[in-house]
């Protein structure tokens, strides 16, 4: 389908504005839009309209909420597709989780949290060292906390993880889920703080994989 015959040059530029706003415009199209914006006052008004559309479309999409248990059900589908997951040199935490998977699902999470918390508290309650600075966060604390997903290397030690998280205001709030994925809460007020701490976690030898999760509300 070709472009409409009644499409004027201004119409063409208007049509490119969404792509200018999302940062994907390039080459001659980008030059044309930038020149238009620089020389025609009406272009600025048109850009504001596109920005309003941007907000409306974002709101319409964000209103669609994915189910909370999607990952869990996907894991089951994956297991059904390729068979149950084999164990692969589990780390200390992953090994703990592996043992806990024999527990009925209804109590596994609570048991895991309690067991891990016990191990972590033991790890940080060394003589002469302040205790209680590493914990499984409570449900209320974790509800709105920025977080990141982390998997740890097989060589990771509880002491290393505990020391690092305590120093950086980070807390394990859930996990490990299947695959050894932990949800780590981050006490960051801004996206910049969040990125800095996530970068620090990723740079640690014990971090195998780091996937950003919820950022602070400023969204930057």
């Amino acid at each position: 389908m070709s472009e409409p015959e009644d499409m004027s040059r201004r119409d063409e530029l208007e049509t490119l504005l969404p792509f200018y706003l999302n940062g994907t415009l390039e080459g001659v199209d980008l030059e044309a839009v930038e020149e238009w914006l620089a020389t025609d006052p009406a272009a600025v008004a048109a850009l504001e309209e596109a920005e309003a559309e941007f907000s409306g479309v974002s709101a319409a999409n964000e209103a669609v909420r994915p189910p909370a248990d999607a990952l869990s059900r996907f894991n089951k589908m994956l297991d059904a597709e390729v068979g149950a997951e084999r164990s692969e040199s589990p780390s200390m935490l992953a090994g703990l989780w592996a043992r806990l998977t024999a527990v009925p699902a209804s109590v596994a999470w609570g048991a895991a949290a309690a067991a891990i918390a016990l191990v972590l508290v033991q790890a940080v309650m060394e003589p002469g060292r302040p205790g209680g600075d590493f914990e499984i966060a409570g449900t209320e604390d974790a509800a709105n906390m920025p977080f990141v997903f982390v998997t740890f290397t097989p060589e990771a030690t509880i002491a290393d993880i505990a020391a690092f998280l305590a120093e950086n205001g980070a807390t394990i709030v859930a996990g490990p889920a299947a695959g050894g994925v932990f949800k780590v809460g981050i006490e960051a007020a801004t996206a910049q703080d969040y990125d800095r701490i996530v970068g620090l976690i990723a740079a640690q030898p014990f971090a195998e994989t780091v996937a950003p999760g919820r950022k602070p509300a400023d969204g930057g």
Partner: protein
Amino acid sequence: MTAAPSQQSDLELVGRVAKGDRAAVRLLFMRHHARIFRFVARQTGSESMADDIANEVFLELWKQAPGFEGRSQVSTWLLGIARFKALSHLRKRKEEWIDDADAAAVPDTADTPEVAVMKDNKANALRGMVNALPEEQRSVIDLAYYHGRSVTEIAEILSIPVATVKTRMFYARKKLGEALQAAGFERGWP
């Protein structure tokens, strides 16, 4: 291994998936599921269907990862798979699709602009108006504004020519402009 988030790219994760790494496919799921789910839900109008299709998309990722050559972004690839699967599901339901020329002339069956403007600000009104667009136009709008895709990426995802992407964007924005004007909001174009 130590990898910053930016270093542990989608492409690297797909490489791990190709070697049978389930943790990698789960990480990709966590990164992209919400947007895939929303994309399909808005295409099909069914969250339950979107739930099934989104999971199928990531199973497809698991199966196809060894053949992925990285010619497009992983997210673009996933959206393309989602689009294909959504169309397949809809065809099974024998729903009819409309072509561009008809789409420009077909009246909306959802909220009228007058209903949309019952909401007391432009953003809310626009949200309703976007939802009322024909699916083919709404997909282009969603992919550009919400998913941040380029013209060529949208063409790839929807399997349509670049010119058609622009045409649908033109009609979609024109329709939004008309709806805003009808609702009493000032809008200079078209």
